[in-house]
């Protein structure tokens, strides 16, 4: 592999990494605050993209408006799931897991009759091409980086500088103590679901013009996000960022060198080793 190819590969890896970070944000929040592996993350990502397809792609709503609509609608969906599924099950990890799997299966299956069977697309929002260190990168991919930064900052501020965020952190540390302090656990849980879903929808909405839309499009992002939060550590935002960047480089450089399957195998082996020797990931803390 020539040096030029390696550098180009790293640039691609950065582009991939930024996409992955975005995909991981919603999952990090829910994992960190509620210790739930949100299996519906992929399905919500897909729904966010389809909101863009209908509102922006078909009905002419301006993209920015449609983007916020996607976050709001799916945040509301998060409230619904918390109220109707998470709360009645009283938070047992395994039944919640099964229930979320059922919801995902349902949403993905219903996508085919409702959205149709052909792959869909959404018109490009940010036009233009740039050449970075010899690699052609489209403007829409580059835009992921600033938007991801904004969302990451927003999430960070929310968790660390707002009252609600403080409440979430309190519950994560010790649910009973927080309740004794007057924190309304149900409301905060609902909020965690809402924000987590909204973030998943946001990443789907951003990816919609870059890739294509189909009801199963959330599967890959779920898997990638999953790998990233393990790499980065439970609930750690810096961890998600670093994890995303690392995975982006693995998926790019190793794939260009050896092919895709070996690259994927490597990332799983990496996770296994990490889990065995430092389960809390790069930045996570003990649960």
């Amino acid at each position: 592999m020539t040096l030029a190819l390696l550098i180009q590969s790293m640039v691609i890896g950065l582009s991939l990494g930024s996409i992955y970070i975005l995909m991981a944000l919603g999952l990090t929040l829910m994992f960190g605050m509620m210790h739930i592996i949100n299996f519906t993350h992929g399905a919500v990502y897909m729904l966010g993209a389809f909101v863009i397809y209908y509102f922006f792609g078909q009905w002419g709503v301006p993209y920015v408006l449609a983007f916020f609509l996607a976050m709001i609608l799916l945040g509301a969906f998060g409230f619904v799931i918390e109220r109707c599924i998470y709360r009645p099950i009283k938070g047992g990890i395994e039944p919640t897991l099964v229930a979320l799997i059922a919801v995902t299966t349902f949403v993905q299956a219903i996508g085919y009759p409702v959205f149709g069977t052909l792959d869909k697309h959404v018109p490009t929002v940010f036009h233009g091409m740039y050449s970075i260190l010899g690699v052609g990168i489209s403007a829409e991919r580059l835009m992921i980086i600033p938007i991801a930064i904004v969302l990451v900052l927003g999430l960070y501020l929310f968790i660390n500088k707002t009252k609600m965020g403080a409440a979430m952190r309190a519950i994560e540390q010790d649910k009973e103590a927080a309740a004794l302090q007057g924190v309304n656990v149900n409301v905060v849980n609902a909020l965690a679901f809402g924000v987590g879903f909204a973030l998943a929808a946001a990443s789907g909405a951003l990816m919609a013009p870059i890739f294509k839309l189909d009801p199963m499009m959330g599967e890959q992002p779920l898997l990638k996000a999953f790998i990233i939060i393990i790499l980065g550590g439970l609930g750690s935002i810096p961890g998600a960022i670093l994890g995303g960047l690392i995975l982006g480089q693995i998926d790019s450089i190793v794939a260009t060198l050896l092919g895709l399957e070996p690259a994927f195998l490597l990332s799983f082996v990496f996770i296994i080793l990490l889990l065995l020797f430092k389960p809390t990931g790069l930045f996570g803390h003990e649960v």
Partner: protein
Amino acid sequence: MKSKIRTVTLLAVVLLALLLFIALGGNYYAHLLALVFTNVILASSLRLSILCGQLNIGHSAFMSVGAYTSALLAKNLGVPFELSLLGGALLATVVGIVMGYPSLRLRGVYFAMVTVAFVEAIRLIVQIWVSLTRGMSGLSGIPKPSLLGMVLTTKTDQCYLALGLMVVILLILYKLEYSRLGLIWKSIGMADNLALSLGVNVAAYKLLAFAIGCFFAGVAGAFYAHFVRFLFPPTFDFLMATNILVYNYVGGRGHFWGPIVGAAFLSWLPEIFRGSEATRQYETIFFAITMLLTILFLPGGLITLPGKLSDLFRRRAESVPSSAPTVMTPGQRVAIQGNPKG
């Protein structure tokens, strides 16, 4: 004692009914039942991990190892079925121990994540190792199962084999669960720190449960390989592993019969949806709804259904409002519900 005789008689009746069903049902039912029995084996063998409180979403990986090992031994080396089945199960156990041993320190979600990573890693290895497994082309030409040299050519015969395997494995698992070993596992599942403080070698027992589970998953895999006779790596994926877990939870986590009921119910359900004109287009959707409703309304699993139904009838029978207080203490509730084992 009387209750035990009744139980055994009931079981014998069910077994007889199954045998009759297989004998008369023809290829269609033989095929379905054989797969149901395989799923029961998978779900019940996973239960051992669940007893120990481990969230194990990796069972399909060991099924895969068992399947491919047995298939390759039989196809490429002419090993007779009984031995290739054993070989598959043993290799699955070895792989399970190799992977399980370092992972046992992990708890809860972390353990779950490592099992998922195992499933994907094994799937990818099988896919990449094309020269051995034919990778994504699929491994075909797997010989049919045979016993003592006699090939089981018909689906019906193969179904009897599956039934036999299932019954033997369930007996073993039952004995294990209701033995001292089972008690130790359950104590680990409920409070492993406490068990540890009492001198129980928690890690060793967890590994034992995991390894035995892998062995039977390997058996199920080997049978599957010689029954369907076509192996395709994505078959043994994360989705299948979660399905096996779902069988346990929908059936009921608290009882030995839970995975059996869950596996039987959820294996048969798609076939019912497939049969009805109305639901055929939307099989997957109905399946997901059924899963969801069961989790929401029967949190203890399907196993609790008879209990709840009889409660319902009992409450109807007591039409006279009782003088009991409306807020009951736990002690009172247990007393009213009677013997929870039914």
